[in-house]
């Protein structure tokens, strides 16, 4: 387990060794805040971050696969994976080190959006409990999206393929519970099946937290999903 630290360090600072990390952070920030303001952050006259939470899953859909796509495919393409796995590093430590580094990077991106929370508290009197439970939910949801991206990245040496496939999977798991999917399938699938699929929806679980409810079911959903995908990640690499 003490082999996680060197991997984390290398991977985390790796985001800032090239302009890529800064570009991803800037684009994420501008897009998310832009969407929130465009969607009526000021007009709604509410001291809340609801407009951010509405768009966060959709922004994550692109941002997190972009963050996670390089984790493994880059090592495979350049051949450095051979070096990595001939160093005395257990696969689990390598997977966790990389995952935590990318998660911390996403954490920075989320922390930057806190500027809007500060604006909100300047303009009004927001409920900080709801804001923090929203952030807590965002961090958990990010972990789940990221674990999916990490698996996709481990399956190919092509970053673009890793990106596209993980966006597709992320779109699917997000849409599971959305109105869009329900309208498409309401005539085909039984309501029972749709309800069942809704249980796996990122949107549903995330939305409860943006309303200030930290439910055990939502937390465990994201945590279990993340652990499961990281487990798959280890298996994919070891084969």
């Amino acid at each position: 387990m003490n082999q996680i630290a060197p991997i984390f360090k290398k991977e985390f600072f790796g985001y800032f060794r090239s302009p890529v990390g800064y570009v991803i952070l800037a684009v994420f920030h501008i897009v998310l805040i832009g969407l929130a303001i465009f969607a009526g952050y000021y007009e709604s006259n509410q001291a809340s971050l609801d407009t951010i939470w509405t768009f966060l899953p959709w922004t994550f859909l692109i941002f997190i696969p972009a963050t996670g796509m390089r984790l493994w495919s880059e090592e495979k393409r350049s051949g450095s994976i051979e070096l990595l796995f001939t160093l005395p590093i257990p696969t689990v430590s390598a997977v966790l080190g990389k995952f935590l580094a990318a998660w911390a990077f996403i954490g920075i991106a989320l922390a930057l959006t806190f500027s809007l929370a500060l604006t909100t508290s300047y303009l009004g009197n927001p409920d900080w409990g709801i804001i923090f439970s929203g952030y807590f939910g965002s961090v958990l949801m990010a972990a789940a999206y990221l674990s999916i991206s990490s698996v996709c990245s481990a399956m190919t040496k092509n970053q673009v393929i890793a990106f596209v496939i993980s966006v597709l999977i992320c779109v699917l798991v997000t849409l599971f519970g959305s109105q869009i999917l329900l309208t498409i399938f309401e005539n085909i699938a039984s309501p029972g099946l749709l309800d069942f699929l809704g249980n796996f929806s990122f949107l549903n679980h995330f939305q409860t937290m943006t309303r200030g409810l930290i439910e055990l079911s939502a937390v465990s959903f994201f945590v279990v999903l993340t652990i499961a995908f990281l487990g798959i990640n280890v298996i994919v690499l070891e084969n």
Partner: protein
Amino acid sequence: MVFVDNIVKDYGDLRAVDGVSFEVKKGDILGFLGPNGAGKSTTMKMIAGYLSPTAGTASVAGFDVQKDPMEAKRRIGYLPESSPAYPEMTVAEFLTYVAETRGYRTQDEIHDRLANVIIKCHLQTVQNQAIETLSKGYRQRVGVAQAILHDPPVLILDEPTDGLDPNQKHEVRNLIKTMAEEKAIILSTHILEEVEAICNRIIVIDQGKVRVNETPEEFKTRLPGSSIDEIFREITNSKAYA
């Protein structure tokens, strides 16, 4: 120090390595020869613990590379073919990363190890340069530096002098020779004179099988009067067309 027993590697229907066995003792420099695709790199990758063998075993300093991979890997310094590294890292950053994964954690220890290999591999002038900006020769030396950083008892070097100019080749060979006393070294190469210059044992591998396992002197008596090049061609060609 290194035991390889009847090791086999299949890629689907293709048998890349077909029952290779040999032993390397402390003080030995084993030269691994063979045409491209003969199974040299695959065999080295299996000993280094990157690929798992289909059958057979390999052990390093008494540790089975399959059953006890972490202990075996700690005792190996491995230079992969074409020496991959992380292009955007500087030489010092990269070596620090390797030192940390090798278990050196205090600043002093890391600094010590780095200073040692940077001098040995003549990297002083480029230590703060990004690896992607380095020439092939420097990159190769960074790869060697990374492999010898923790002073391992076993060194596995896949074409260590590939891409170096004649002076650099000479230097790397000298470096390998000076380390040989304390270590068991396996190196693969296409340069046959290199084997003559530094190895005390030759293994010729062709189509996944060991064709020759003897000292350079014995090897040369196979066809008296001819060069190692000619003997190599003789051995690897006759089998291919037999």
